[in-house]
């Protein structure tokens, strides 16, 4: 028997970025600066200053357009 799914699931698309936190070695969270850092041209810089990339592609690190993630209150 086919499992019943909501109507809109017919149109679901894979999320535009990976669904789980990806451990990308190019980026790390720096506790002292409270920011994600990366190495560029031999210097460690905040990833928001990077001209080469926008940071790790995780659903929670998504400065790409539009994929608004809901908070669901807090984490419930």
């Amino acid at each position: 028997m086919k499992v019943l799914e909501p109507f809109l699931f017919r149109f679901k698309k894979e999320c535009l970025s990976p669904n789980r936190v990806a451990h990308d070695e190019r980026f790390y969270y720096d506790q002292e600066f409270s920011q994600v850092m990366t190495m560029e041209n031999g210097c460690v810089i905040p990833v928001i200053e990077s001209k080469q990339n926008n940071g790790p592609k995780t659903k929670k690190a998504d400065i790409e357009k539009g994929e608004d993630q809901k908070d669901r209150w807090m984490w419930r």
Partner: protein
Amino acid sequence: MILILSNKWDISVDFIVRELSKRGENFIRLNTEDLPYSDCTVSLPDFSFLLPDGKEVTELVGNLKSVLFRRPGKPFEEVESSNLPSEHTLRYSREQWHALIEGLLSINGVLWINNPRANDLMECKIVQLWKAVEVGFRIPRTCITSSKEKAEKFIQSCGGCVVAKSLYSSLIECTNKDFFVFTTIIKSLKDIPSPEIGIAPVIFQEYMDRKIDYRVTVIGEKAYAVRIESTKRESIPADWRTEKGELKFIPCELPNNIRKKCISFVSRCGLVFGAIDLVQVNDDFYFLEINPNGEWGWLQKGARLPIAETITDCLVKGKL
């Protein structure tokens, strides 16, 4: 003191951190996925709320002026699945931490961007749409239903073409992969079994053809608008997010009455921040929805809108 409740990988928060640091403001970024490894203590009746600040702890009562509440991380979410506690321990732990953080709402005189309760309420599109009507926005004709029959009648009344979208979060979280439901054009439900509509209600709205899309980011009394255009064709799809690689975002001014309505709407929703989607058809603007926690890093970096600066202004003032 300014408190940021978020997660390590929220890059948009980094723009705020940079701005706060530049201004020499005193702040704590608490990435809540790390709470189980932190030292938090609340004392009563002499109210004291101690939260970790690096290696120290900081008293928030009497010192806290504003909170940026943006996508807080779940405790243990970065832990490998093989090292996670049991499911019931995990749930219990998260609920207890949730209650502790919820207690921060008891500290008086604090500006929240956004208040998590208002955030949650405003995720409901019925509430959004009705509030939009109350502030005088036009909205598309809308039918939210769990009845296939009612939906079919609505489609007919709209000339045989509507859009369908989720009533709450469009995110479908599966074990190994997540999915997202974008706004979709629907012309008929003929082959759809009724229980598929019955299992979860759906929003159907009249389809706006020949529209111009706008994203309006409101922060307190400021509103920053961008017009969304395709780089490849004249019109853009029902949901512009499906073509994000081929879009350009052009900063623009909205008509004054529409700008004021956006600001008034966000305020009436009990929010400070809101990302509003509008469409223009001929000379008329229509409210589609608000994302109380909408993403904006791409507008800061790409369209060079001063969103982080404006949020920081509010956090520093501790009031609107």
